[in-house]
């Protein structure tokens, strides 16, 4: 590796209305280096990358590339400087051929028309160099995600990229494909091309990267060579907690008091590539937390239990009876509810009223001879508006006008009025303010004391510690630890996330 700096982003700041996404972030990448960029969601990784690649323009700060100041105000300018990006959502044209995707915009021309023979030959050469054997005339969408990603990289190489940014390149690859990607990355290194590598998988970072920059809340909280940092240090920097901040846990776990009845049991449930055989059980009236970094497979596991995705293997027991994995509507019949992470996309119907949103799922029950009983409907809605303290001027207000916390309560109310036995909550406090957070957590406790089981996913360890009776730690699609109330502590959880320890002292 070259010791010279290729890229130096100097105190980059960027604000969006209401948010300061980047607060003077520095990033230095050396020539031929694979540089990891780590941070939880909202830490500013993607904003920083977008500033670099010309999608966003920085408010303050300077970018130096090969010791010259550059201005990447459009993606094209960034590309011309030698910075290429491989996005999560592949930025290629699915219905065109592989060779065409590599050369689109820079077609090889002969007498005013495209020279397809030369195009195919050049494409083949580039892919051969990468060690990828594939028919260059085949349609891109007929190929696996891995190959499509390789095409994206081939395109970057063909425009003489000096720096390739890979935004979660492994998130949709299986293990074997990841190996191939790493081989390609090593070849890039050998050609003195630098790589910025974004991933949530710690093992990958420690395997392929040379150095790491850690972001949290829009600031750089750490820079290190990979060989000088441990996984635990990395996780604690990402999560950013000092021991002094740790809140003491109020709840205590009473094994005798806790029901032995399992609502849900999964055995070795599998769905590639995110869930690789997880056993989990949720007891009656228990709040089970799922901890783990983003992309660890938490959400995917919850979706499998709810029937939103079909597993490739494993068993599911509901109330002790073996059940087939079905559609969400079957899970709902069995007494399950699911509040998804992105309530705007999968949860609320923004233009409908609070009343309608709450009663959406129970309308059949309220309907007599095809007509919704308004009296009955309003009675239920009023009950939940009061019980959950939903702040709305009246029940006919459109949900989109409510604050995030109150929207979340509306979704909770929707599931609660169905009298569920199990509620799955994916990041229930994401994007809502502190006060509302507390209320939601209290609600969860309330649910549990009403003997409703809760499966709660959260990236905020504090929150899990506060609300859960038990925490299962998920890492890279596997359950790597399980903690009971007494053991639940920040250190223990972080240790488990970082190292995958099975037991704790």
């Amino acid at each position: 590796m070259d010791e010279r700096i290729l890229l130096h982003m100097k105190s980059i700041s960027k604000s969006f209305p209401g948010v300061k996404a980047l607060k003077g972030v520095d990033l230095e990448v050396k020539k031929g280096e694979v540089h990891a960029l780590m941070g939880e969601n909202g830490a500013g990784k993607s904003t920083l990358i977008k500033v670099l690649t010309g999608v966003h323009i920085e408010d303050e700060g300077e970018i130096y590339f090969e010791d010259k100041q550059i201005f990447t105000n459009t993606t094209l300018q960034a590309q011309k400087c030698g910075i290429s990006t491989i996005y999560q959502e592949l930025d290629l044209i699915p219905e065109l051929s592989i060779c065409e995707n590599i050369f689109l915009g820079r077609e090889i021309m002969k007498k005013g028309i495209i020279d397809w023979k030369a195009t195919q030959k050049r494409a083949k050469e580039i892919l051969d160099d990468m060690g990828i054997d594939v028919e260059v005339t085949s349609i891109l969408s007929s190929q696996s995600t891995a190959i499509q990603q390789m095409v994206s990289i081939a395109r970057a190489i063909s425009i003489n990229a000096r720096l390739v940014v890979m935004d979660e390149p492994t998130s949709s690859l299986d293990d074997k494909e990841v190996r191939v990607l790493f081989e390609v990355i090593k070849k890039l290194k050998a050609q003195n091309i630098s790589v910025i590598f974004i991933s949530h998988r710690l093992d990958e970072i420690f395997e392929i990267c040379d150095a790491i920059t850690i972001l949290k809340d829009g600031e750089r909280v750490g820079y290190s060579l990979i060989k000088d940092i441990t996984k635990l240090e990395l996780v604690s920097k990402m999560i950013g907690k000092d021991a002094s901040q740790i809140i003491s846990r109020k709840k205590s776990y009473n094994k005798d008091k806790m029901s032995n009845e399992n609502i849900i049991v999964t055995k070795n449930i599998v769905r590639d590539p995110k869930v690789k055989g997880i056993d989990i059980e949720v007891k009656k009236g228990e709040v089970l937390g799922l901890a783990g970094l983003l992309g660890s497979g938490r959400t995917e596991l919850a979706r499998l239990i709810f029937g939103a995705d079909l597993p490739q293997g494993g068993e599911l027991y509901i109330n002790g009876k073996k059940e087939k994995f079905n559609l969400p509507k079957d899970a709902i019949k069995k007494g399950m509810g699911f509040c998804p992470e992105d309530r705007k996309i999968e949860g609320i119907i923004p233009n409908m009223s609070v009343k309608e949103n709450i009663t959406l799922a129970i309308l059949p029950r309220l309907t007599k001879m095809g007509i919704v009983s308004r009296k009955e409907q309003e009675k239920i809605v009023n009950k939940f508006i009061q019980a959950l303290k939903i702040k709305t001027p009246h029940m006919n207000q459109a949900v989109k006008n409510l604050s995030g916390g109150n929207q979340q309560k509306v979704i909770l109310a929707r599931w609660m009025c169905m009298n569920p036995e199990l509620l799955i909550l994916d990041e229930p406090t994401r994007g809502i303010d502190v006060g509302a957070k507390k209320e939601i957590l209290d609600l969860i406790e309330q649910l549990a004391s009403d003997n409703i089981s809760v499966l709660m996913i959260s990236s905020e360890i504090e929150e899990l510690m506060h609300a859960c009776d038990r925490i299962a730690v998920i890492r890279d699609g596997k359950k790597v630890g399980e903690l009971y109330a007494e053991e639940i502590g920040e250190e223990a959880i972080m240790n488990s996330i970082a190292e995958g320890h099975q037991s704790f002292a």
Partner: protein
Amino acid sequence: MNIVELAVRKVKAFDFKKFFKDEGALITFIILFLFATFKYEQFFTVLNFKNVLRQVSMLGFVAIGMTFVILIGGIDLSVGSTLAVAGVVAAKVCSYGVAVSIIIPILIGIVFGLINGILVTKLKIVPFIATLATMLAIRGIAYIATGELSVGANSASESFIQLGRGFVFGIPIPAILFILAIIVAILISKKTRFGRHVYAVGGNEDASRMMGLKVDAIKMAVYALSGALSAFAGVILASRLGAGQPVAGDGWELTAIAATVIGGTLIVGGVGKFSGTFFGVLIIGLIQNMFNMQGNLNVWWQNILMGAILLGVVVAQSQTGKVSKA
């Protein structure tokens, strides 16, 4: 590490499913053609073929433009109105010579197309609404400019009339021009940078922008092309009828869309081909021809048949998974 394993190659064996999907228009055409040949004596005659080709050629020009527009993921509802204005203008200026009566209407068509392009790219109005608005407005212009009356072509301008009615080597001139236009469109779509960029923009507009393609310029050019081709269709129609009519081309936008979709172009853009549009246009011509020969059937049955074929094509596409993925 065996990298070869990763490259999942498609089996090269002949794929009937794919053939039916890709060549649906051709297959439908052959079936209708054979049916007509056996059913109607007068069908399989040189004279009838000439007539059908001449009849469909005007729709053909419009459909070529429409195919370009649909390929970029747009739609152009204003083609019929543009055709009417162009025909009226052509009839008015035909005494200045045939070149003038072609060029001026085409320029007008280009201007209308550019207006569509500006509405879609600069003002970011969805194509359906933008071109619905210009469709209404341009049709209004056609009626106001003519006082709702047909404009007769100067009978002295024989060469203008020949454009729509004449023959070269015994083949109707409009048919020759249509076939030439299809060949040029096929070449553009396969061999030129512009053609490939059209597919790229329709396939993934954001990605095209990221790749540095001039997306807005490509869209403008495509709408201008659609305007120009519609106008040219209007010129030919006026020449054939010997008059420019403000009502001409009413509803043609939908027929052109039908021909394009029957030809296998996906309405969401990015996938399609001009040989398909060629057969799509011929199928529509064939259906009209067959109903003319049948004589005793209510003509509106042909709309029902066209609708059924259109549905058949779309269902076939979705069954093979292309539409649902987009």
